[in-house]
C-alpha cells in the first residue's frame, strides 16, 4: 500500500439550519480550521478544488469567488460537482494532481448553503439530480427514489421498519455528542410510534420511508488539505494517508437499474476498487463513515462494503455491531441522519471524522482500540456516483 498522498489538515463548520452568513464566510469556517490544523499558510498551497451542488448557489462559478476570499489566488482553482458526493470527488481530483506531480499541496473545500430555498423547492431540485427527461415528469424526489430501493430490499431480505428505526436511533446516539451536528437530540422508539401524538418521525414521506428515515438539510462546509509525502512529513506529526481510492457511476434512470433488492451498484464498484488499491479487505477496516442519506442507505452500504453478506445487513444493526464499541463502528459522528447533509460539504466532513478517529482525536466519539484503518463511503444522487476512500496511518 503506497503512502504517496496524505491528509494533513481537516476542518468543518458546524452544520446548522439557516447559516448567518454568505457562502464565502461559510467556506472560510472550515478553511480556517483545516489550515490551522495543518499549520500551513496560503503560500504553501498549490491549487484549490471547490465542491458543491450548484442548483443551491445563486453565485455562478463559485470557485474563483471562494478562492479569492480564502486568499488562494493566483493559484489555479477548480470546481467539481457530483451532487452529494462532490467533496469526495474533489479529493480524488486533488489526489490525482498530487500523484501527477503537478502540485505539492491541494485544498479541497466542500460547501452548501441549502437554506436559501424552501424544502419543496429543494426536493424538486434534488429530484432533478435524477433523470429530468423521463422521470421528473412523474413527480420524483430523493426520498421516493430511495424508497424504491427500500421497498424491494425489505420484501426480499426481511428487513423491517424496526431495523430502519434502529439505524436512526444509532445516529441519534452520536448526534447528541457531536457538537457540530445539526440534530442534537436523541431518538427513541416513541418518536416513530404513529399512535403517539408527539411522534416527530412517524409520518410517511415516501412509503416505506418515514420522516425519521431521512437526513436533515443543513448549511455547512468542510475542508481537507492534501499533501505529497515530502510535504506531509515536513508539516504533519500525524499524517493520515490515502491508501485506496475508488469511484463508480451508474445509469441515472431507474429503468436501467439492476436488482433493487441488491442495493446500489456504485457501492460495490467503488469499494472493490478501493480495497484492491489499498491491498486490504473489509475485515481490516476499524471505523467507517457511510452515506446514510436515508436509513435504508446505511443498511445497503454495510453490504456494498462487505461488512455484511448480501441481504444480511440487518444483522449488524440488530447486534449493535456498528455502534462505537461494536466490531465495525459506522457513522459514530451521527452520520448524515443526525449530523446533517449539506450536499457539497458531506464527503469532506466524513473524511474529517475518519482522520480524527485515526489520529485518536475524536473526543467523545473516539472508537476504542486505536483504529489504524478507516473508510469513507460517499454517494451522489440515487447511487448515480459513488466514492470509497480508504485511509490509514
Amino acid at each position, binding site marked *: 500500500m503506497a503512502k504517496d498522498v496524505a491528509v494533513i489538515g481537516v476542518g468543518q463548520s458546524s452544520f446548522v439550519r439557516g447559516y448567518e452568513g454568505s457562502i464565502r464566510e461559510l467556506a472560510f469556517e472550515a478553511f480556517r480550521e483545516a489550515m490551522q490544523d495543518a499549520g500551513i499558510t496560503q503560500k504553501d498551497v498549490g491549487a484549490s478544488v471547490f465542491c458543491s451542488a450548484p442548483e443551491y448557489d445563486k453565485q455562478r462559478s463559485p470557485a474563483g469567488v471562494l478562492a479569492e476570499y480564502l486568499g488562494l489566488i493566483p493559484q489555479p482553482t477548480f470546481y467539481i460537482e457530483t451532487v452529494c458526493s462532490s467533496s469526495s470527488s474533489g479529493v480524488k481530483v486533488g489526489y490525482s494532481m498530487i500523484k501527477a506531480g503537478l502540485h505539492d499541496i491541494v485544498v479541497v473545500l466542500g460547501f452548501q448553503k441549502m437554506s436559501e430555498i424552501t424544502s419543496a423547492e429543494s426536493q424538486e431540485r434534488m429530484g432533478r439530480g435524477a433523470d429530468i427527461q423521463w422521470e*421528473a415528469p412523474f*413527480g420524483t424526489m430523493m426520498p421516493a427514489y430511495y424508497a424504491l*430501493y427500500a421497498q424491494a430490499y425489505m420484501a426480499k431480505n426481511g428487513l423491517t421498519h424496526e431495523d430502519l428505526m434502529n439505524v436512526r436511533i444509532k445516529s441519534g446516539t452520536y448526534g447528541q455528542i457531536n457538537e457540530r451536528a445539526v440534530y442534537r437530540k436523541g431518538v427513541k422508539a416513541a418518536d416513530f410510534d404513529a399512535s403517539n401524538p408527539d411522534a416527530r418521525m412517524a409520518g410517511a414521506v415516501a412509503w*416505506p*420511508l418515514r420522516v425519521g428515515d431521512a437526513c436533515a438539510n443543513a448549511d455547512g462546509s468542510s475542508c481537507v488539505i492534501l499533501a505529497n509525502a515530502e510535504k506531509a512529513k515536513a508539516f504533519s506529526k500525524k499524517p493520515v494517508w490515502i491508501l485506496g481510492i475508488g469511484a463508480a457511476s451508474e445509469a441515472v434512470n431507474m429503468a436501467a437499474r439492476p436488482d433493487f433488492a441488491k442495493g446500489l451498484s456504485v457501492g460495490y464498484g467503488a469499494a472493490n476498487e478501493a480495497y484492491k488499491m489499498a491491498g486490504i479487505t473489509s475485515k481490516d477496516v476499524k471505523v467507517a463513515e457511510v452515506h446514510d442519506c436515508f436509513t435504508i442507505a446505511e443498511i445497503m452500504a454495510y453490504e456494498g462494503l462487505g461488512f455484511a453478506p448480501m441481504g444480511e445487513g440487518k444483522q449488524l444493526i440488530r447486534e449493535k455491531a456498528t455502534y462505537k464499541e461494536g466490531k465495525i463502528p459506522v457513522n459514530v459522528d451521527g452520520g448524515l441522519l443526525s449530523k446533517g447533509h449539506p450536499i457539497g460539504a458531506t464527503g469532506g466532513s466524513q473524511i474529517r471524522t475518519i482522520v480524527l478517529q485515526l489520529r485518536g482525536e475524536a473526543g467523545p466519539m473516539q472508537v476504542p482500540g486505536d483504529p489504524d484503518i478507516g473508510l469513507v463511503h460517499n454517494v451522489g444522487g440515487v447511487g448515480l456516483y459513488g466514492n470509497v476512500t480508504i485511509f490509514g496511518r
Partner: protein
Amino acid sequence: MGFEKFGRKSFTGITKTAKFVDLLTEGKIEGTVCKQCGAKFFPPRADCASCFSKDMDWFEVPKKGKLETFTIAYYAPFGFEKDCPYTMGVVDFSGLKLFARLAKDLKPEDVKVGMDVTVNPLQYEDGQMSFEIAKA
C-alpha cells in the same frame, strides 16, 4: 418541440425522441430499437450506445410484466403537490424495465412487489400525455 406535453409536468421541450408523445396519443407506448445492431431501449434513445448508429426504429413495449418495486409519495416536489398521494414504481418485462406512476384506482394496500401488471397510455385533463402502470 412537442416533448413539453410529456408527463404531469415536463422539464424538457426538445428531444429527437419527441415522437414518443405522438405515439402515446395514438395509444402506443414505444421504445427504440437500433436498426444496425438490434439493441432495444426504454426509455427511447436517439443514439445507439452499443454500435454508435443513429438509425432507430420504434417498438411497442410488452404488455405483461411484474412490479419490481414501488413507493407511495405523501410529499411532492414543487409543482406536483395537488397529486399527493401518488404511487410510482418500476415494472420488469423480463429484462426491459419501465418507471411510471401507478393507476389511481389501485389502492396502496393492494399493491405488492412481484404482482402482475401492465402499462397503459394516459391523458391528463390538461392535455398532458403520459403512461401508467395498471393491474394486469
